[in-house]
């Protein structure tokens, strides 16, 4: 039987990895991810989890060890964020190209400088082009569910790519929430044992990660791209089956009061919870506002997002990262949205706002301000590519 308990979200994330009978955890602690790996280390030390915990000397080594263990056919988990992600990032590309189904929880945190341990999506966007599946949680229950689903998604032979579960640092990682922790037998029913297509085996030797010269690199990349393009329906299938078994349904894009909305907000992660409150508040004032929450950032669910926004007059896209584009093109989420709209010849008024950087709270009043800015802006000439919100002038 699943049980509902009050638990810190990081601890619940570790428990979820434990329920998945993970074989190897290689990780290095970094705020605000620390409690996740700390708890996994405890579980192994106390004999509650039969796994190898590899206390590596850096995140670079963490992902290297994960690549080795996953290539040997072990179910592998790690966790990091921010500067730690930056240090491990060169290995992350390799994990994806070698099709290794590693699962990583990222307790999203800003990148330096200035040094900042608080939440934004700088690390999530840093990982954007690595070829990992990127899933974003909005609350604690989603962290538990998405961690379990991540193994199923990663190890599906039709997918076989590493999966990143993003949870906002502190805002989610350090909250204590009432969460439903599934029963282990239920998890085992949902998640079959890991059966890799290829794995390192002395009796059947092979090479992983060889040189690919100019005459083969393009073909290798094309093959990886085609494989990644084919993953979306299998991710949805994993979510549908989870919904049937556990009663909680997940979708690549989830909407809130979007059907008749003139203005649609687009957000990701825990900020979506505030955005829903803002939608209620603005609706009470007679504004027809709705919300589209992006749950899956890679592969990007273009059709689902387009379906959610195509009838809106105004689209407000929130980005939680400074991507230093030079000022004349938008932030990363807005770039995706514009690409989708352009390809489908749909041109609502679109504004991109940079919010919630380095732990700065985004409030209902901030959403009102964004709406006012959109209402006041005229569609004459070139619109600003993005604007900071909640910044002291």
């Amino acid at each position: 039987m699943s049980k509902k308990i009050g638990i810190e979200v990081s601890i619940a994330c570790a428990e979820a990895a434990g329920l998945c009978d993970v074989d190897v955890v290689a990780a290095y602690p970094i705020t605000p991810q620390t409690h996740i790996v700390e708890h996994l280390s405890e579980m192994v030390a106390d004999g509650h989890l039969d796994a190898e915990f590899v206390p590596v000397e850096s995140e670079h080594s963490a992902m290297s060890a994960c690549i080795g263990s996953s290539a040997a056919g072990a179910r592998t988990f790690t966790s990091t964020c921010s500067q730690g992600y930056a240090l491990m990032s060169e290995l992350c590309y390799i994990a994806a190209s070698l099709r290794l189904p590693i699962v990583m929880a990222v307790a999203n945190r800003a990148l330096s400088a200035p040094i900042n341990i608080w939440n934004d999506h700088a690390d999530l966007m840093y990982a954007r082009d690595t070829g990992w599946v990127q899933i974003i949680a909005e609350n604690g229950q989603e962290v538990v569910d998405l961690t379990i689903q991540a193994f199923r998604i990663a190890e599906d032979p039709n997918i076989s790519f590493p999966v990143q579960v993003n949870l906002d640092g502190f805002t989610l990682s350090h909250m204590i929430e009432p969460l439903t922790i599934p029963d282990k037998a239920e998890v085992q029913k949902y998640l079959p044992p890991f059966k890799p297509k290829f794995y390192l085996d002395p009796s059947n030797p092979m090479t992983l990660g060889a040189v690919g010269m100019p005459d083969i690199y393009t073909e290798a990349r094309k093959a990886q791209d085609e494989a990644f393009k084919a993953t979306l329906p299998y991710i949805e299938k994993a979510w549908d089956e989870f919904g049937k078994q556990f009663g909680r349904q997940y979708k690549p894009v989830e909407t809130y009061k979007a059907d008749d909305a003139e203005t649609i907000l687009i957000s990701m992660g825990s900020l979506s919870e505030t955005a829903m409150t803002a939608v209620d508040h603005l609706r009470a004032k007679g504004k027809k506002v709705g919300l589209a929450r992006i749950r899956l950032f890679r592969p990007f669910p273009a059709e689902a997002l387009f379906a959610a926004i195509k009838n809106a007059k105004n689209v407000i896209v929130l980005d939680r990262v400074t991507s230093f584009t030079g000022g004349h093109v938008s932030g990363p989420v807005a770039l995706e949205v514009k690409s989708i709209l352009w390809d489908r010849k749909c041109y609502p008024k679109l504004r991109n706002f940079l919010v919630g950087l380095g732990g700065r709270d985004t409030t209902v009043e901030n959403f009102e301000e964004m709406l006012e800015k959109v209402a006041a802006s005229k569609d004459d000439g070139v619109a600003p590519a993005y604007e900071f919100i909640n910044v002291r002038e």
Partner: protein
Amino acid sequence: MAKETGIKSWKELNFGIAITTPGNASELKTGDWRSMRPETNKEKCTKCGQCYIFCPDMVYSKDAEGYYPQNYYWCKGCGICAKECPVDAITMVQEVD
């Protein structure tokens, strides 16, 4: 991976670009960007095998008479063999074509 005998289509590449035939690097022609070629003077050669030992690739192997002829399929023209030959039997010759 890419053999001299035909590049594979992206559709034929192994899952995860794994190489499941170990040792197939020997099929890869690495001797096609050389500008200098080592040549051995058999009159000076003492068959000591230093060229075979020092060659970083697989250019040298012993023949029936005990000499070490070059297989230029892998020779990049690095010149280590010529430098290491204790009797200066190997000279680096300019590739003309």
